[in-house]
């Protein structure tokens, strides 16, 4: 055990910091759940790509830096500390990208990876269906191979597709064997969202913005070369996409550590009123400790993985821990803000507090998406602890 960065790691951090300092927009971008904000974020992705900071864990020949997990964590620390924009194309570069590199044909890699990296193509996910929220094996949308074998004809409906409103492509699972059940007979397919027969219906989320959408497929024709992996192999391809290393890309400790830091500041700035409720001080302290613990455990896992270790039920313990921490921190923030806590950011008397309300609303989804925390608890009990399934 050596809890110190190497010289190279420190140098890498300096490099990241310098670039971000020179390039992070002075004005915060608009929310990428608005059309204008979406375009702003797409441009930011292009800028990151130019600097080769878009997906540092990708191989150099694909525009990345072949960075390891620790470098990734360092990058993220600097990224969040610099207040850089959220990543509008994370579905592509962190989830689909690595999956493509593993399962894609050479032609597919050539075709898709660059557009993904530059922000030209923004991807959304097509996992959930109206009756298959946390239960992906219940997928019913069908993709039928045409008689000449040249394309699939897709019919059905996907939902909770984040950022689908302005995205260019969708990747997801479809049932290619109509007789199949559960996780058999599913195929992983990439679908251009401008295909004929596709309707995207925005779903307004808690803040009123269309952060996700339903996607309806009505005899949508997709060429077979848009299939990722073999027909019927969808489940195993998808599971690779859902793995922990990818999760780590999306929910790096830096995010929560920065929230904890802001919470400490908020508390100190309002200490007199906050201390009227003696729990608040404790909650703030705990937020700091928990964010720190999340960082420690992530580093431990990253180190273990780099040494060839495998991931167990960490994906579930991790999901519960960060999502509930995120909710608690924002709840505490709103408590400290008292009557200002309910104000929308643009309100004249809100002051610099809008972040907390936005963050609070956003945090509500953390315990729900990608398998509710109840499902994660089942997984921990059954897989990590070996308790009886039924």
């Amino acid at each position, binding site marked *: 055990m050596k809890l110190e960065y190497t010289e190279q790691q420190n140098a890498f951090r300096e490099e990241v910091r310098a670039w971000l300092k020179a390039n992070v927009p002075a004005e915060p971008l608009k929310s990428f759940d608005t059309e204008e904000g979406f375009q702003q974020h797409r441009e930011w992705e292009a800028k990151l790509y130019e600097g080769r900071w878009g997906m540092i864990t990708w191989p150099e020949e694909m525009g990345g830096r072949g960075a390891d997990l620790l470098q990734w964590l360092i990058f993220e620390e600097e990224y969040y500390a610099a207040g850089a924009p959220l990543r509008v194309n994370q579905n592509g570069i962190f989830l689909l990208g690595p999956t493509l590199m593993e399962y894609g044909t050479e032609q597919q890699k050539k075709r898709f990876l660059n557009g993904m990296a530059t922000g030209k193509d923004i991807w959304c996910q097509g996992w*959930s269906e109206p*009756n*298959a*929220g*946390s*239960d992906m094996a*219940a997928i019913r949308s069908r993709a039928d191979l045409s008689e000449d074998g040249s394309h699939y004809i897709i019919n059905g409906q996907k*939902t*909770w597709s984040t950022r689908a409103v302005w995205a260019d492509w969708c990747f997801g699972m479809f049932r290619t064997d109509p007789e199949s059940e559960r996780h058999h007979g599913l195929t992983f397919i990439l679908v251009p969202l401008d295909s004929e027969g596709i309707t995207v219906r925005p*779903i*307004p*989320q*808690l803040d*009123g913005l269309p952060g996700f959408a339903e996607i309806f497929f009505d005899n949508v024709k997709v060429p077979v070369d848009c299939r990722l992996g073999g027909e019927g192999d969808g489940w195993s391809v998808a599971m690779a996409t859902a793995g922990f290393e990818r999760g780590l890309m999306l929910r790096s400790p830096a995010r929560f550590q920065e929230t904890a830091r802001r919470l400490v500041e908020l508390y100190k700035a309002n200490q007199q*009123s*906050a*201390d*009227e*409720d*003696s729990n*608040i001080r404790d909650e703030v302290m705990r937020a700091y400790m928990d964010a720190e613990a999340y960082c420690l455990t992530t580093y431990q896992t990253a180190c273990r993985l780099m040494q060839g270790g495998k991931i167990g039920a960490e994906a579930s313990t991790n999901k519960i821990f960060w999502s509930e921490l995120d*909710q608690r921190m924002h709840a505490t923030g*709103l*408590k400290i*803000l*008292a*009557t*200002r*806590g*309910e*104000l*929308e950011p*643009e*309100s*004249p*008397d*809100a002051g610099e507090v809008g972040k907390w*309300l936005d963050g609070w*609303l956003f945090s*509500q*989804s953390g*315990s*729900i*998406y990608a398998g*509710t*925390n*109840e499902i994660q*608890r089942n997984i921990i009990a059954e897989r990590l602890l070996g308790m009886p399934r039924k």
Partner: protein
Amino acid sequence: MDFTFSEDQLLFQESVRDFLVNEVTPEKIRELWQTESGRSDALWAQLAELGLTGMTVPEQYGGLGMNELDFVLLAQEAGYVALSEPLVNSVLVAAPLLIEAGNTQLADEWLAKMASGEARVIVGLEINKLVEDAHCADLLLLEKAGAVYAVNPAEASLRENKSVDPGRKLFAVEFEASTAVLLADGEQAQKLITRALNRGALGVAAQALGLAQRMIDLSVQYTSERKQFGVAIGSFQAVKHHMANIAFRLEYAKTPVYRAAYALANDLKTSSENVSHAKLVACEVADLAAKNSIQVHGAMGYTWEVDLHIFMKRAWAFNSNYGTAGFHKQRVATAIFNDGAQLGAGKTF
């Protein structure tokens, strides 16, 4: 000793519930969100017709001359439908304040109009920073620097703020004392303000009970219908326990709220601590109801389309309304940690 409501009180509650559930539907609420004022004169007139706007207005002015205890169950029902009309504050805060201020000219001018529904009188206390519904006020009663004023809305400037709850309209209100009628200052103002604050907090607490119940009802209905893994998700034990955890706490939040209403109606010395206890636990259970309800709704709960958020956001906004948890905890602490405090078995009543 009788800790029950009268037959009449329960019947009134029932008829008001029927009215509100039919008239203040989620669809109507969403329609009102689209309007400039967010308030409905038609609905206000109906509430007046039911006698509600005059509940606490003396009979001589055409009101019902009732008290906090008579109204508390109705406030609960107002919470159940997330009513946005300023009814609870009008009945519990504005009318009593106008009466207690002792300015007969103002009382004569406004109380009858309040009872008839002709006028909305809006109170603004500094504890809330912003004034809810100031835009639809015919008369403003405002706290400023330790005094209480009656302000003609035409003489006040309003700056609108947006709440996370689209049903709440909040305004920073400014006025010149010289253009207003001074109702009280010094000790008398303090008394008036404390009493108004207690009544406002009681109103929030009672509405929070209704909100919690509504979120339970919505969640039970949703989870009984929604299927996953082949069965209704409401049959999963984790989902059941999320709901049960709200339900059992709700039972123990109701009685403190009723006791607080009783204390105010009877002007008991324990009013402030009773109100604070009520406000704390009622807002906590509504907050828990929001938390557990969105969780059992899954992604649906995170949308604007499902009705849950109407009630959830109201519950969030109520947390710091008429005093933060910290404010009310301090009042309870003062009551129980002082050396002469009468605590323990047999000391409750």
